[in-house]
């Protein structure tokens, strides 16, 4: 008897030592081979591209990193051109805070919008909404930024003040008393930036989630309906378990965009270089905004420092996505019941 398989069964006992394990030989046809090499090389190109970007940032940032040493991770201020210290200890937390605020708003909104579109909306509204979401996802972030700056920012600060007054006991919403709580301290905050970034993240998250939810297997849906399931029951027991990967994937895509969002953040914030918990009062920052603000006025050493900051952003994004894809690969999304 011979065993076909990738590896020998683990429970082979001694008296079966004569069994010959066969490594299956696959002979590929011409077309198959061509397709395979095209697909493989595309995959390889992705890797090379990532390596090139990472390598580029590392090489460009090397001068600055050499000077700063570990201080690059622990220093808050940013004065490479003045011969001062520079590090990401403040701008990285700010970057993450803005992204977290954005996702905190975007994920629930996107999730409910996607569920509404796929599960509850009448057919015509469904098409309209889908088209609108896709359209919104394609609007340049500058537009969101401008609209946020001129329309939303003045209106958000009332909310900021309300939150500071009523929820100030939460560290995130605490506003330092030395400023008082006049409206003037609220406009250029992490919170306002995060809200505006969330607006551009919502359509992307929604588009991804909607796409995945709409592919939930009809057989399972009908199975749930036929048991007397309500729509919510179908959502909970069929659509959400199936769409888990899409929820995570969509959120991560949004997080990537939020972490890297430049123009809207640059327009809103007033740059700060001291990390803080509070998100409501003025002063925030982000790596992307810092690069955009400083790029034109920096010496070559200053640019090297900005490249190092860019490298930090690149690594964070990679880590987040790697974590997400591990979670996604453990979920079932994309496969249906098989006989």
């Amino acid at each position, binding site marked *: 008897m011979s065993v076909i398989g990738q590896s020998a069964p683990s429970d082979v006992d001694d008296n079966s030592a004569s069994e010959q394990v066969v490594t299956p030989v696959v002979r590929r046809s011409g077309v198959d081979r061509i397709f395979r090499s095209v697909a493989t090389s595309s995959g390889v190109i992705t890797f090379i591209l990532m390596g090139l970007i990472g390598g580029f940032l590392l090489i460009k940032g090397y001068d600055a990193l050499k000077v700063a040493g570990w201080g690059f991770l622990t220093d808050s201020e940013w004065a490479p051109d003045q011969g001062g210290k520079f590090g990401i200890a403040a701008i990285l937390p700010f970057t993450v805070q803005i992204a977290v605020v954005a996702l905190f708003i975007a994920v629930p909104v996107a999730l409910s919008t996607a569920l509404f579109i796929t599960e509850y909306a009448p057919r015509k509204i469904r098409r309209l909404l889908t088209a609108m979401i896709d359209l919104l996802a394609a609007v340049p972030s500058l537009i969101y930024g401008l609209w946020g700056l001129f329309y939303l920012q003045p209106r958000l600060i009332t909310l900021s003040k309300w939150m500071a007054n009523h929820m100030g006991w939460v560290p995130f919403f605490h506003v330092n008393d030395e400023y008082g709580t006049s409206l003037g301290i609220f406009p250029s905050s992490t919170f306002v930036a995060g809200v505006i970034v969330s607006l551009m993240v919502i359509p992307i998250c929604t588009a991804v989630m909607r796409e995945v939810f709409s592919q939930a297997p009809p057989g*399972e849906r009908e199975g749930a309906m036929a048991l007397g399931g309500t729509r919510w029951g179908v959502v909970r027991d069929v659509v959400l378990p199936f769409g888990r990967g899409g929820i995570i994937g969509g959120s991560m895509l949004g997080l990537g965009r939020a972490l890297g969002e430049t123009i809207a953040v640059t327009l809103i914030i007033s740059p700060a270089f001291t990390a803080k918990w509070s998100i409501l009062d003025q002063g925030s920052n982000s790596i992307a905004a810092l690069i955009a603000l400083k790029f034109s006025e920096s010496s070559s050493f200053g640019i090297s420092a900005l490249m190092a900051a860019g490298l930090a952003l690149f690594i964070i994004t990679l880590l987040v996505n790697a974590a997400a894809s591990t979670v996604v690969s453990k979920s079932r999304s994309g496969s249906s019941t098989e006989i």
Partner: protein
Amino acid sequence: MTSIDITSTATTRMSSDISLLDPGHQAAGLTANNVSCWFGAKKVLEGVNLDMAPGQVTALIGPSGCGKSTFLRTLNRMHELVPSATLAGEILIDGVDIYRGAIPVTDVRRRIGMVFQKPNPFPAMTVAENVLAGLKLSGLKTTRSERDDLIESCLSKAGLWNEVKNRLGDPGRALSGGQQQRLCIARSLAVSPQVLLMDEPCSALDPTSTRRIEQTISEISETVTVVIVTHNMQQAQRVSNRCAFFLAAENEPGRIIEEGPTKDIFTNPRDSRTNDYVNGRFG
């Protein structure tokens, strides 16, 4: 004949006159009165009258495309899930119209269960969770011991208990096709339906699994009215008490050509087309 606007009927009334988990529930009779169905402008079923008596097994036979599945799906309001679908006529369960709001649609579907052609266990759930899925979907609270009893009794009725009792925690999709289908039957039985609709439940299965399911049908038919679509003439003869023969002439909607006790349909049909079909001369 007035067409029913399916979507506007009341579906939210909260009350259920059957108690789930009640073992003393009764098989219910279904009556179709002058049922016609459309997909968009296309009429696929016309003037169907059929009585499915309590505790009986009714087989629906006929060539592909004559509207058997469509008819079956009108019986528990699955038909209306197809966006363009409409229907006319009435379906009564124990004399009560299921379409005009007297019974909430979720109750209709709970009382009239359905087993599909392709086994569709919930892949994210274990074998045990699959059996209990209907209770969860209905938001019904049960105690641990009630659940354990229900899992064992339903899997036993579906002829699956002995095969899976040691793997209740495995995912439902890890079972074979035949086992998955019996799991789906067990799942349907767990909400104590009064009627069970089966759409070619064995068409994807091996002969052994098919026999097991036929056995199950015979066993449950005392407490559950069964309506089964089948292409297998032997199966129809083995499991059913009554038989309805559907046929659609070219470019015409399907109709019931003949209906009666299974024995008569197979040995002494009144219509020559029935005779031809059951003897394998077309379809």
